[in-house]
C-alpha cells in the first residue's frame, strides 16, 4: 500500500507563498486505503489557503494522478481547463509520483500536500518515468516537480555538482543529470528562484514508516507474517 502523511499546514502555506491562485488536485485512486487525503483534507487546505490570502481553485478529484493521460483528459473539460490555465500553482494530494506526474502533464509549479513514506511495492497504479523514493520529506515544490532524491545519483538537495556533463550524469553518459532536468524545468516555468532556495539536509529519520502504521489492518494485510504473530 501507499502510505503518506499530511504535511503540516504551515509548511504547505509556506510552499505556495507568493502564488496568487492555487489549484487543488487530489488523487481519487488511493485515498481509501492509503489516506492520500480525502475531501476533508483538501477542503481544510482550501480554507487555510483562503485564510492566507490566496484564491483557491478546485479541489478537483481525479482517479490516479500517477496517470498523465488521465490527468490531461479529465482536465480537458472547458470549465476545468479554464481553472488550470489560471492557476499559478497546483497543490497536489497524492503520493510523490502523482505530484511529479501532475507537474509533467500540466507544466505548472506544483506543491506536495503530503510526505510519501512508503510505496508498499507499488510504483503508482500507472507508473511512468517518474520515481518516488518515499523519503518522507517531500521537496517537489522547490524542484519543479522533479524529484532530486530519485533523479540525482547523489540525491543532492541544493543543485548540480561538478560532475554534470552536457546534461548527463558523471556516472554514465546514458543517465540524465537530475539537477539539469530540474534546472531546465524551472527555467521553462520561469521559476529559477526556486533553484536558489536553500534546502536543508534531509531528515533520514522520516524514511521508515511510523510504528502506528505497523499496527493497522492495511499493513497486516500486506505483511501476513507480521499479522499472524
Amino acid at each position, binding site marked *: 500500500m501507499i502510505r503518506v502523511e499530511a504535511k503540516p499546514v504551515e509548511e504547505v502555506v509556506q510552499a505556495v507563498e507568493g502564488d496568487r491562485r492555487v489549484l487543488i488536485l487530489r488523487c481519487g485512486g488511493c485515498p481509501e486505503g492509503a489516506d492520500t487525503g480525502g475531501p476533508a483534507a483538501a477542503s481544510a487546505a482550501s480554507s487555510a489557503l483562503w485564510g492566507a490570502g490566496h484564491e483557491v481553485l478546485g479541489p478537483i478529484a481525479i482517479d490516479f494522478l500517477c496517470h498523465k493521460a488521465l490527468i490531461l483528459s479529465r482536465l480537458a473539460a472547458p470549465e476545468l481547463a479554464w481553472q488550470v490555465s489560471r492557476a499559478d500553482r497546483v497543490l497536489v494530494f497524492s503520493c510523490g509520483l502523482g505530484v511529479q506526474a501532475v507537474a509533467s502533464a500540466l507544466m505548472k509549479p506544483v506543491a506536495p500536500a503530503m510526505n510519501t513514506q512508503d510505496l508498499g511495492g507499488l510504483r503508482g497504479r500507472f507508473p511512468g518515468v517518474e520515481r518516488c523514493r518515499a523519503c518522507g520529506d517531500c521537496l517537489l515544490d522547490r524542484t519543479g516537480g522533479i524529484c532530486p532524491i530519485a533523479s540525482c*545519483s*547523489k*540525491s*543532492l*538537495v*541544493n*543543485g*548540480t*555538482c*561538478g*560532475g*554534470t*556533463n*552536457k*546534461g548527463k550524469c*558523471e*556516472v*554514465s553518459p546514458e543517465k540524465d543529470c537530475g*539537477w*539539469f532536468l530540474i*534546472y531546465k524545468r524551472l527555467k521553462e516555468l520561469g521559476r*529559477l528562484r526556486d*533553484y*536558489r532556495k*536553500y534546502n*536543508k*539536509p*534531509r531528515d*533520514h529519520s522520516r524514511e521508515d514508516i511510523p510504528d502506528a502504521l505497523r499496527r493497522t489492518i492495511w499493513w497486516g494485510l500486506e505483511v501476513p507474517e507480521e499479522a499472524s504473530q
Partner: protein
Amino acid sequence: MSRLQESLASGRFTVTGEIGPPKGTNVGPVLEEAEHYLKGNVVAVNVTDIQTAVMRLGSLAVCHLLVERGIEPVFQMVCRDRNRLALQSDLLNASVLGIENVLAITGDHTLMGDHKGAMPVYDLDSVGLLKAMSLLEKGRDMGRDSKGKPNELDGKPRFFKGCVVTPCAEEVEPQIIKLEKKVAAGAQFVQTQAVYDPKVFEAFMRKVEHLKVPILVGIVVLKNAGMAKYMNKFVPGVLVPDPLIKELAAAPKDNVASVSVKIAGRLIREMKGMCQGAHLMTLGWDRYVPDILAEAQL
C-alpha cells in the same frame, strides 16, 4: 587567521598548490615534493580527499603532517564518504590539529572509483557542509539535545571556508546559482575547476562580480596532448582549446614538459588580472612549480 586568509585579505595574488596522498602508507615521496617544491612557493597546499573515489591515505592525516613541516594545508572534504556525524567530528579533529583552511566538495561518485560497490553517502551536500562549518564556529552543531535544544560545544573551532565551482561548464547558470548558495552558506574563498580559456573565464568572472569572495583560478598542468584530449572527452566542464593541444603535440619529444610549463605559466599570466589567485594542480609534477611561477611573472 590562516596565512591563506591573510594573503587573500591583503589583496596579493595568491597561489595554492595541491598534493594527492598515496595509496598506501609510503607518505615520504609526497611530503618531500611538498617540502622541496611547494613550501615557500605557494601560500597553502590542498590535500585531496580520496580523490576520484579511489581508496587511499586520507586528507586529514596528510594535512597534519604538512602542519608539522611548516606547510599550511587546505583540508579538502568530500561529502561522499561520511555522514553528518563524521563530517562534523572530522572538522573538530582538523581544528585541534591546527588546520584552518577547509574546502567543501561534493565528491566524485563511488562508481567513478575502485570500490564501485561502496555506499555513496552524501548525507550533506557541499552547501550543507559549509553550513555545518559555520554552525560549529558558532559553538553549536547540527543536532539537538534530549530537550530539543541546540547542542552547545565545549570549545569552538575556527575555519577559513572554501568551495569550488566549474567556470567553463556548458551550462554555467546552475553552477553560478549553486556558488551563490555556497557563499550564502559561509564560503570565504573559491578554487575553480581547470580553466584553459581565459575568454570564457573572463565572462564567468563578470557574472559572479556580485559575490564578494576571492576566486583562485584552477590550473591543471597539461602533461601532453593525449592528456588534453582525454580531459576534453572525459572531464566534465573542462575544455582545452585546439591551439593548446597543437602546441603540446608539436613539443620536442624529449622535453614536452617545457611546453607544459610554458602553457601553465602563460594561463596564469593571462588571467591574473581577472581574479585573486591561482590554484595549481600539477598531478605529481610539483618539481615544475618554481618554473611555472617564474613563467607566470607574478
